[in-house]
């Protein structure tokens, strides 16, 4: 057939060129994706490789030891672990309830432009650099009081709040309207519907959104610099004094020339990274499952 009509299905030179360009583009896309994963793997491998040596029982249970005679330092990070727990707990206690309330307000009461403005402000607050929030708490609280774990918690709560509010909003929106309407049709008031039906139905989703926010807050360093950095090596659970934290330990260890402190930094990084990644993966998996369950 090709002989008689002069029509051929064999690729012309132009088609070959187009296919070549296509192939090139696809390779670029593949490479970009692989590169991103490679960076993730490279960071994890480096942290595990250099950090796992530091992980002994003492690392978790003892505070840093500083020998002023020999100048040797190192030891555990028990004080940082305790501090991070206290700081993040403070932040969670503030941000979680307020975030959920904000989400309930937008989904139940706010209409039209109020809802839009609120969503907009939440997104903008989410974009404020964390170091600016640290400076803000420094100016409004630390200057008039003193550095403390509570002040650091305040700063972190501002970072967590938009995350909690937005994720809760998304989960609340997934609650089927029929459920809500059934409740109203039974003559149940709005607050009972919210407290007794909507929140319980989306509770899992709200909590996982909260844990994701916690994972994010636990790794923040910048807000702690001005709010809880003048610390001691003592293990303390008192939120009224400045407490050391894991991210801050890593940051400060790096500025020291001592290799023992660098090893401590890698160990602390391994602890932090493990916590953050495990929590993120688990909550994301849980959230996806919940979403499927709710939207079914």
């Amino acid at each position, binding site marked *: 057939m090709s002989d008689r009509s002069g029509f051929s299905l064999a690729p012309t030179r132009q088609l070959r060129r187009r296919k070549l360009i296509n192939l090139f583009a696809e390779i670029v896309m593949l490479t*970009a994706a692989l590169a991103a994963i490679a960076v993730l793997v490279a960071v994890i491998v480096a942290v595990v490789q250099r950090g796992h040596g530091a992980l002994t029982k003492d690392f978790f249970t003892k505070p840093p030891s500083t020998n002023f005679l020999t100048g040797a330092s190192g030891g555990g990070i028990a004080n940082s672990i305790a501090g991070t727990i206290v700081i993040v707990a403070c932040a969670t206690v503030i941000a979680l309830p307020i975030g959920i309330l904000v989400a309930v*307000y937008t989904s139940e009461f706010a209409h039209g432009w109020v809802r839009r403005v609120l969503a907009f402000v939440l997104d903008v607050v989410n974009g404020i650099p964390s170091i600016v929030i640290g400076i803000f708490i420094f100016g409004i609280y630390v200057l008039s009081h003193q550095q403390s774990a509570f002040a650091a918690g305040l700063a972190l709560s501002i970072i967590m709040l938009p995350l909690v509010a937005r994720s809760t909003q998304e989960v609340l929106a997934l609650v089927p309207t029929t459920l809500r309407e059934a409740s109203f049709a039974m003559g149940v008031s709005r607050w009972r519907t919210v407290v007794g039906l909507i929140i319980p139905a989306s509770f899992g989703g709200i909590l996982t959104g909260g844990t994701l926010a916690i994972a994010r807050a636990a790794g923040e360093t910048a807000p702690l*610099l001005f709010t809880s950095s003048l610390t001691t090596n003592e293990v303390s659970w008192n939120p009224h004094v400045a407490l050391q934290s894991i991210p801050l330990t890593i940051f400060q260890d790096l500025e020291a020339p001592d290799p023992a402190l660098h090893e401590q930094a890698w160990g602390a990084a391994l602890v932090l990274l493990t916590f953050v990644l495990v929590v993120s993966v688990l909550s994301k998996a849980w959230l996806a499952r919940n979403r499927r369950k709710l939207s079914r």
Partner: protein
Amino acid sequence: MSTSAASAPRRFAFTPRRLRDRVGDGILHVVTAAAALSVLVVSGLIVYELVKDSKLTRDAFGFSFITSRAWDPVKGQFGALDFIYGTIYTSLWAVLIAGPAAIAIALFLTELAPRWTRTVIATLVDLLAAIPSVVIGLWGIFILGPVIQDHLGPFLSRWFGWTPFFKGTPQLEGYLAAVIVLAVMMLPITAAVARELFVTVPRDLKEGALALGATRWEMIRGVIIPQTRGGLVAAVMLGLGRAIGEAIAVTQVIGDTLGIHLSLFEHGDTLASRIAAQYQGASSNLQKSALVELALVLLVFSLITNILAQVIVRRFERQLGKS
């Protein structure tokens, strides 16, 4: 709600349950509204506090704070130009690298990757965003730094040494390390937003292009990109917002020195990084005020990028809703 209750027969309005319901509804409304209001108040307070606490330097230096290159705590001279330059310069390079890469990743995830791998790869890219910045900075100093000094830097300087961007000798720290770290940090955000955009492109448009004989790349260039262009700009700007505000990872790798250079091998500093680096060193009130004013300048920068990005995203979503 109150009107409907008022028009209802009176005897219902005063049963204990009815009363409880109305009070409960009222309390829920007030409490949630107060929480919502607190968000607005806090965001206003942030601006107010930064303006108030930087009064000392604003009075002392005025507008020259932004245009002056001096940062000398001993002499009490403070200017932000070097840091403003560093912030913009490193962020732009990061955007140049991470923007196209993120869009390529998003395209790969929506158009190319085998279906079963998509969630896995998307999750992995998202996890990149979960790594704490201090850990990325740690990696930047000890792993990335030597690679730049021994391999990447010499390579760039050999092939691109004739441009002003790769002059001099590569070092452990400097703009280049900061740019790479920032690119890594903005990549997952931009990729995630871009992916959401690409998913919204109507299937019939894509299949129409393919049916006309377009290759996959031609379909992407002719259909997907034009359809989502506005949103893509916003996606990149959201990433840019993150890059502008990153303090910790940058201060660990950029070298923390004054200077305005074109060469990526040089040391420099950014607004956020300078604030972070001086957290224990601020002794005089003037210096504290200068740090707060740096934060104010940084806030203005990040607000401009973020608000623009949000506005674009919202306009884009409305358009999608209409069509």
